């Protein structure tokens, strides 16, 4: 029974946090089993103190910062997608609301005329800018390519 008490104390004694005294000191002096446990605990303490501290690899900081940047970029992208989805949902809801309003108030006939007017205006606008359309299309394609290259470069950054 007393061995249990002594064995519970050997780690603290071996670590130098407490000194063996009184009954425990007497027991450790007379019990070979507990004395051997104390020797083992002291040896374990020495080995643990000599245990080396592994150092991080030389590129650790750079790799960590790259990972942080990638995570931030992904998070920003997620927010962007969420924002765009919310805007689309809002526009759809607004259009739906306007459509329902027109239906219920009987303004369909008026709105039909307005749509015709808008259509005519659009056709006229397209005719005016038609000669410059290839230029606009080229500029848009260039911008889209630049954005695609940027997106691809950010996406494929390797650690």
């Amino acid at each position, binding site marked *: 029974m007393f061995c249990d008490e002594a*064995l*519970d104390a*050997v*780690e*603290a004694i*071996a*670590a130098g*946090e407490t000194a063996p005294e009184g009954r425990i000191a007497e027991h450790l002096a007379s019990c070979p089993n507990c004395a*051997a*446990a104390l*020797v*083992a*605990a002291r*040896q*374990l*303490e020495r*080995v*643990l*103190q*000599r*245990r080396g*501290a*592994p*150092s*991080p*690899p030389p590129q*650790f*900081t750079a*790799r*960590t*910062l790259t*990972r*942080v940047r990638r*995570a*931030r970029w992904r998070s920003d992208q997620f927010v962007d997608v969420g924002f765009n989805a919310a805007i689309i949902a809002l526009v759809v809801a607004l259009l739906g609301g306007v459509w329902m309003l027109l239906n219920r108030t009987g303004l369909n006939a008026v709105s039909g005329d307005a749509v015709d007017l808008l259509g005519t205006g659009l056709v006229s606008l397209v005719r005016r800018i038609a000669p410059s359309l290839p230029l606009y299309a080229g500029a848009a394609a260039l911008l889209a390519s630049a954005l695609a290259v940027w997106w691809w470069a950010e996406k494929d950054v390797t650690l």
Partner: protein
Amino acid sequence: MEAVSERELVERCRSGDETAFQELVDRYKGLVFALIARTVQDRSRAEDLAQEVFLRVHRGLPYFRGEARLSTWIYRIVANVCVHDAASRPAAISLDDERAGTHAPPSASDRQFGDFELRDRLEKAIARLPANYRLLIAAHYLEGVRYEDLADALDLPLGTVKTQLHRAKQQLRRMLETDLR
């Protein structure tokens, strides 16, 4: 003085200063990596987890209120990451399997080899400890980590940290009983 510079560093990080975050990583990477590498005992896994710690630090900095020291907060993240990692990976190392057939009693004349072998067996024994004990053993014998920081990081009273550390060493002593005599 150090606390002031620590606060300044946190503020700079919060304002999006990447150089400040790099400084933070440089300041704590040694400690974080050593703690994790001693706990998981696999360098590539340790690097991955240490990066994960800094990623969480980066994400959490806007919410860091500065009530605890930055180092304490980082230890807490290290503890969470290590415990989570241990929960997702069952321990695979068996001390008995390693011993079978290959272990000869170290002779007195070959002390260096004996020490090397003891250290090797110690690492395997540590790998078999529960994750929280492994972290305590790793941190306690690492220079710069105070008992108080550990107690704060693990949300445990100081006395409990000491008791758990003694229990961890008791388990290690029992696992290595024949090697230590």
